[in-house]
């Protein structure tokens, strides 16, 4: 017990000098940042900027060339179960013969020994997770029989069942219906009140200021990282999406609108 308050002093995730390449091409170069606990954080950048790659590199799912990621001050192997990963929906084999409840129970498998079966408590945790996302009625469905939004909810329930402290999600809002989007936002709020941290790859600039507390701008390297009100600036958008002028106009407008919304919220 060297530190009096380790929770406050060690960030849930700190990345230092991270570089990654894909087929000899550099994808990410020298990325460093730290995030605060109990916030929602968006990783934002244009297509091919390396957002998903960053998430996978942090999770040890793809090889890192240089640098490291630390979780609550420790290497990944010591903190694996404290981190729940939600993969992109396209990366999942939806034809796999498995039902909703068994997918959610997978969130408990990390805690179980090889020969152990999920206990009654594990099943209760899985049930609560499904109920929180309004999917309990679908527990016996095969995952191929679900809509896109329902599929996303099942995977969020799986992450929830893991009872992690840090959630890393790859585009959880991509291709989901409005009600699922609302459910996810509610989930974020609940998790935040429990002091949990959520990091999402996010592509929708219309909602980024509204849904997230923090933004990490990425385009092959780190552009900016910080609280929304500080980093969501025209300059940072310009740097991140630079050169795409037509897009840039939209973005400026978006940014303006987001800030307008924020102002209204404050009323």
């Amino acid at each position, binding site marked *: 017990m060297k530190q009096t308050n380790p929770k406050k002093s060690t960030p849930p995730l700190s990345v230092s000098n991270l570089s990654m390449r894909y087929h000899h091409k550099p994808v990410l170069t020298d990325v460093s940042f730290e995030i605060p606990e109990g916030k929602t954080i968006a990783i934002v950048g244009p297509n091919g900027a390396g957002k998903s790659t960053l998430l996978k590199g942090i999770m040890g799912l793809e090889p890192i060339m240089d640098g490291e990621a630390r979780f609550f001050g420790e290497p990944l192997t010591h903190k694996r179960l404290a981190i729940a990963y939600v993969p992109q929906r396209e990366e999942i084999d939806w034809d796999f013969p*498995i039902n909703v409840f068994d997918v959610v129970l997978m969130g408990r498998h990390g805690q179980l020994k090889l020969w152990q079966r999920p206990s009654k408590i594990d099943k209760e945790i899985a049930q609560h997770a499904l109920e929180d996302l309004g999917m309990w009625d679908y527990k016996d469905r095969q995952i191929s029989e679900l809509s896109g939004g329902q599929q996303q909810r099942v995977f969020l329930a799986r992450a929830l069942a893991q009872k992690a402290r840090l959630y890393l999600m790859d585009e959880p809002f991509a291709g989901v219906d409005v009600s699922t989007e609302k459910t996810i936002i509610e989930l974020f709020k609940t998790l935040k009140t429990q002091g949990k941290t959520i990091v999402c790859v996010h592509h929708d600039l219309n909602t980024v200021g509204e849904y997230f507390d923090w933004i990490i701008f990425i385009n092959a390297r780190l552009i900016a990282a910080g609280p929304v009100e500080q980093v969501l600036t025209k300059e940072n958008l310009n740097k991140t999406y630079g050169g795409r002028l037509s897009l840039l106009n939209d973005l400026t407008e978006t940014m303006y609108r987001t800030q307008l919304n924020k102002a209204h919220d404050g009323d």
Partner: protein
Amino acid sequence: MINDIWILATASLVAAACALVGVFLILRRQALMGDAISHSVLLGIVLAYLITDSRALPIMLGGAVIIGLLTAWLSDTLNRVGKLQSDASIGIVFTLFFAIGVILISLYAGQIDLDQECVLYGEIAFIPFDTLHIGGGGNLNDGFEIGPRAFWAIAVVFIIVLISIIVAFNRLQTVAFHPKLALSLGINIVFWHYFLMTLVSMTTVASFDAVGAILVVALLVIPASSAYLIAKSLKTMLWFAVGYSQASVAIGYTLAYQLDSSISASIAVSAGVLLFLTIAILQVQKWRQRHKKEILNSHHKYNRL
């Protein structure tokens, strides 16, 4: 009569073990790896025999597992380091190993009681003539006869496969479903990959005498594929795969008896026919459902008018 029972029992266990292992190969999209290992284990058997001069089951299984794992590892290495496509890498490695095995057999033909035809096609009808004995100090014709070698080989392997799947069910399921998710949960996916390859190696080598290197692929892939089409969970897929495999054995054996033809080939053909029947039935069901909807829709339109 007693010979028929031994043959049927052996075929049934071969088919069941292959079906169980095949389910995981299909779900992991590694059917080709099953094909590869079933061929390259030949080299393992031949080398094990030439080095130890013994046909004991543990030695045969050991040789097969070593070469089987080497096949998987070398294919993967060629793919990663050599920058060759993964299916090309697998094709290169297993044909090479199989060819070396064939050369060794013809070089040492006098010492090995394996002939090339038997390796390729197997001959389940001859199984009852090669029996195991307990006691008798190793002399083949002394001691108490306990039944065909091939039967006991596959019986032991079947039990190993069954226990592995029951004990490691959750791990195997998570790794097959989403390897990266499994990795994020701290599951050692490399270990489980080679564990599955070990099961495949043991299953194919124990099936060798009965069905040969070519037809064992049919038993690995076809019943599991049929089951994949109709199963809604991994557990039901395993049950369906075993069901399909046993039906194939029953139909194939009857067919072979009627036509006086190869038993293993008839079993493989039956498995194929059952697969196509399953696809046909699923298609008809789909068509009927669509048809029903169309009729309902037209009624609605009519009522509105």
